[in-house]
């Protein structure tokens, strides 16, 4: 029973990680770049959301309605000002640029919000739970998982069915051929990053509702997103989602064994996948 409980909690935790991982999978799939400041953007948006809530007295879902468009604009600006200049065959420039951005963002947040941990008041939903067959399931983690499924499903549908999705996939598989057919890769990239960071707007609200955030937490979120993408298999949004579930379950079971072992258990599963199935559990060989 205790292990079944860990499994359930792990899947719910995976819902949180899936929201980080979707954007990273999308950006890597389209541009072959990794945004090192991915996690710091989650923290930045969380802190902005917390400040919004406390100064204007907004509820969590109103904050979300404000944060998601803000995040999308932030992503679009990031692509226009920085990433469009460094995208290319060589991974070094994009890594260094986003690494520098991460360092600057982290310390800027430290300057503005100080090193204290904060959280978003949820008006009670963060503590409510449902009891099913002897297992307490928090209402908030269920909402997080529902949002994660909806976002993954929506992103997958957009990539497969819409005109914009086709343009994205075309730019991902061959930029030159795509631009010959009238697609502007830079515009497509800007929209992809806007979506990737926009999803982080949802993640930011949930992260600050379910636990606390502090300026230095970004690195850990980046690592979880990365591990979910690699475990699941690069190149598909459902792969990233399932990878996030595996990571969440590994961490939840690790925490049950020993509280100091939780995060490490996630890393170990990641390394095992890398050793035995480098294309990812759900990736094509």
């Amino acid at each position, binding site marked *: 029973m205790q292990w079944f409980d860990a499994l359930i909690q792990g899947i719910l935790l995976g819902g949180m990680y899936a929201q980080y991982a979707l954007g990273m999978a999308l950006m890597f799939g389209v541009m072959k770049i990794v945004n090192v400041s991915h996690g710091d953007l989650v923290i930045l948006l969380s802190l902005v959301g917390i400040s919004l809530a406390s100064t204007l007295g907004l509820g969590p879902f109103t904050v979300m309605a404000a944060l998601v468009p803000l995040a999308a604009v932030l992503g679009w600006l990031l692509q226009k000002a920085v990433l469009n200049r460094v995208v290319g065959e060589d991974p070094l420039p994009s890594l260094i640029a986003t690494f520098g*951005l991460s360092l600057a963002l982290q310390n800027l947040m430290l300057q503005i919000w100080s090193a204290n941990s904060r959280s978003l008041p949820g008006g009670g939903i963060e503590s409510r739970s449902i009891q099913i067959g002897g297992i307490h399931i928090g209402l908030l983690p269920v909402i997080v998982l529902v949002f994660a499924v909806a976002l993954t499903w929506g992103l997958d549908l957009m990539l497969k069915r819409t005109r914009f999705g086709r343009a994205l996939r075309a730019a991902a598989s061959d930029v030159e051929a795509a631009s010959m057919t009238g697609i502007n890769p830079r515009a497509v990239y800007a929209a992809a990053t806007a979506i990737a960071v926009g999803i982080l707007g949802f993640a930011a609200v949930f992260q600050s509702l379910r636990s606390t955030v502090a300026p230095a937490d970004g690195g850990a979120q980046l690592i979880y997103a990365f591990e979910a993408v690699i475990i699941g298999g690069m190149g598909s949004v459902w792969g990233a989602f399932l990878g996030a579930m595996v990571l969440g379950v590994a961490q939840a079971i690790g925490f049950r064994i020993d509280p100091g072992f939780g995060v490490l258990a996630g890393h170990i599963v990641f390394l095992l996948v890398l050793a035995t199935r480098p294309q990812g559990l759900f990736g094509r060989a």
Partner: protein
Amino acid sequence: MTMVSMMPPQVRIRRQTASGRIALALFVLALIGLAAMPWWARTGTIRMVLELCCYIAVAQMWNMLAGYAGLVSVGQQAFMGAAGYALFVLAQTFGVNPFLAVFLSLLVPLVLAVPCYLLLHRLDGPYFAIGTWVVAEVFRLVASNLPLVNAGAGMSLSVMKDYSAFQRNIAMSLFCALLVLVSIGGSYWFLRSRFGLALIAMRDNPVAAASQGVNVRRLRFMIYVAAAVGCGLVGAVYFMAQLRINPPSAFDPMWSNIAIFIVMVGGIASIEGVLIGTLIYFIADRYFGEYGASYFVVLGVMTVLVALYARTGIWGMISKRWDAPWFPIRRHLVLERDKP
């Protein structure tokens, strides 16, 4: 005489330049100066120079990885911490002579780097970098849970009390000279050897280099392991001087920030760039370090700007204007004049 014109032209390969000879002489003088520090510097100065030498060595290791082998790592602190801990365990727990233990502790990064590389090289381009960070996190978490290294509480190197202050100063000074000799001198020697030729070919274009018979995979593996051992030496020496080690300090990601800043601002893929970058970082740290967070905001923004607009860094701009390398690694073909 037709025979004369049939003869191949007389050529000579010039590998050293006047600027290179001057720099080499200065380098040797600097090494002697470092080794002789106990006779001309106070303990505070020696500790400061030790930190400077650690920056030079870590930055040069990162430069070899990212600048030549195309392996961008943000997790070299894994090997610094591993060797640092190995030194503390050997010297403190098992009573090995600490100065000997510095060298023995290098076996740990050497042995750990092999499986790490075999796993990480499967990751695509930028994912490799984040993978190295995960490895460093794994090392930190393992150290935080391992009773052998006193888990999260950390260890102290109290055996150093057995040595007088002067003896410790001599050791620190010799280690300073060794760090610079191994990182800068060793890289220079390596880059001038036939491996260096292969490495430079690989830096310019890995596919073309492979078609010329360069074993790109083996060379990358060698550089990764060598950089791990180099960073291990820095870690062992640094934490010996610190006398204390705990998981957050041993595996501090700040070392990656420093190495990346130094190499990118100074100029990637050049030894000169590392020396210039270290000097800039060191001076900036002394003068602006007290501003804390806002100082790091400036460092971060500078790193972004260099990546966007000046990828060759300061040395790249200098060498475009003046062709006077301090550590020349190019081979110049000089045509000898026909003797009358």
